[in-house]
């Protein structure tokens, strides 16, 4: 199908993009969520403001212990970036698991978080990593940024400019594990885990979950259960069993709420074990 009629404006600077946005206008970055929705006429914006040409929003750099990823950075650029792989391999892993090559080569990290699909991979790992979403107006912690089904803290005309991720330091490991929808490769459930070890025990941890609930959430009950444990199989299984507690499980054609709760526990066990082995 063809989209309904819309006006197309290409912004060359961020200021221009902000002034063109708002109201019935939508921002276009990689276009791999918005354009399909427009072709199905699910989405019918009056104006598309193309921000894909804004140079300031591209590129990956490291500033001390912070990895800064421009909003227009594609998933494949994140997956193959030396800076990301050195500083936070789990994020590169997650980026490499998104969709198919077409999506990874066109889809952007800024577009992904702004769209806030409940089954998207980035929100889960970003919440776990304690990432910060930087916009034209402010900086928001990832766990506060995703607020509901396709809902974020973004206001009207506000644009995501950068995603900042803390590099995993000594003694800390991170991992992302997901159960793929076999057709769409969306995360039926995806769990990101960050584990900091001191001696043989878990000093602290963060667990982020996507796909299971209508938005990504932190599994705080599981984090508390794991902290202070010996990270043995039993401790991990006990903590993983609490991962579904943090959110209301979705139910749809591909998985019932009960099955999703089970997947939460399995994916969390894998992510925690992997993160612990990397710490």
């Amino acid at each position, binding site marked *: 199908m063809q989209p309904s009629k819309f006006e197309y404006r290409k912004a060359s600077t961020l200021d221009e993009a902000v002034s063109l946005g708002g109201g019935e206008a*939508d921002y276009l970055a990689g276009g791999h969520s918005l354009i399909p*929705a427009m072709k199905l*006429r*699910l989405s019918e914006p009056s104006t598309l403001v193309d921000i894909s040409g804004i140079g300031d929003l591209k590129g990956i750099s490291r500033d001390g212990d912070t990895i800064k990823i421009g909003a227009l950075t594609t998933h494949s650029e994140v997956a193959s970036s030396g800076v990301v792989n050195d500083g936070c391999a789990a994020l590169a892993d997650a980026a490499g698991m998104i969709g198919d090559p077409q999506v990874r080569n066109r889809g952007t990290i800024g577009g992904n978080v702004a*769209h806030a699909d*409940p089954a998207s991979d980035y929100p889960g790992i970003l919440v776990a990593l304690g990432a910060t979403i930087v916009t034209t107006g402010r900086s928001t912690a990832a766990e506060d940024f995703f607020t509901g*089904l*396709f809902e974020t803290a973004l206001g009207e005309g506000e644009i995501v400019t950068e995603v900042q991720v803390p590099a995993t330091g000594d003694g800390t490991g991170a991992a992302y594990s997901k159960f793929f929808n076999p057709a769409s490769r969306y995360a039926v459930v995806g769990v990101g885990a960050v584990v900091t070890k001191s001696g043989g025990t878990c000093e602290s941890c963060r667990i982020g979950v996507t796909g299971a609930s209508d938005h990504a959430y932190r599994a705080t009950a599981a984090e508390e259960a794991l902290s202070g444990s010996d990270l043995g199989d039993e401790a991990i299984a006990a903590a993983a069993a609490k991962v579904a507690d943090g959110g209301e499980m*979705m139910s749809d*054609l591909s998985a019932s709420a009960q099955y999703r709760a089970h997947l939460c526990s399995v994916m969390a066990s894998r992510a925690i074990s992997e993160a612990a082995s990397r710490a």
Partner: protein
Amino acid sequence: MKLEREYCIDQPIDLVWDSILNPDLLAEILPGCKSLTALSDNHYKAEIEIKVGPVKGAYTSELTISDIRPPSGYHFEVRGIGTKGHMSGGGDIALTEKDGLTVLSFCAEGNVSGILARVGQRLIEAAGKKLMDQGFNNFQEKMAEGAYA
């Protein structure tokens, strides 16, 4: 699609009962409701505009209420026709008293057809729950304001 929700309302059951049959209040709490008019007793027509993520649709719905059992509940049937699909369904609303609070349980079953059903299947239930929660949050706020006491 099946939707089951339960909400606890910090108001006496008689007041909640009067409110959930008040079309003026319903018009204010239904998410995206542009207008709600009574066609006859217990038969209403609503114009609703809903936006969930990238999907924005306008719907004309007809709501019929039957089996009215004050103050414990009623049965409803709804049919909606919209730009993005059609929906039909029905269910029951039940009120019970618990420790001075009112527990409202909502149980409905419905079908969605059209483009929404073809491509939005994985999100329909989550969207339904979200809209329900929004509606009841609005309801709680209105009750707390005492606007319909």
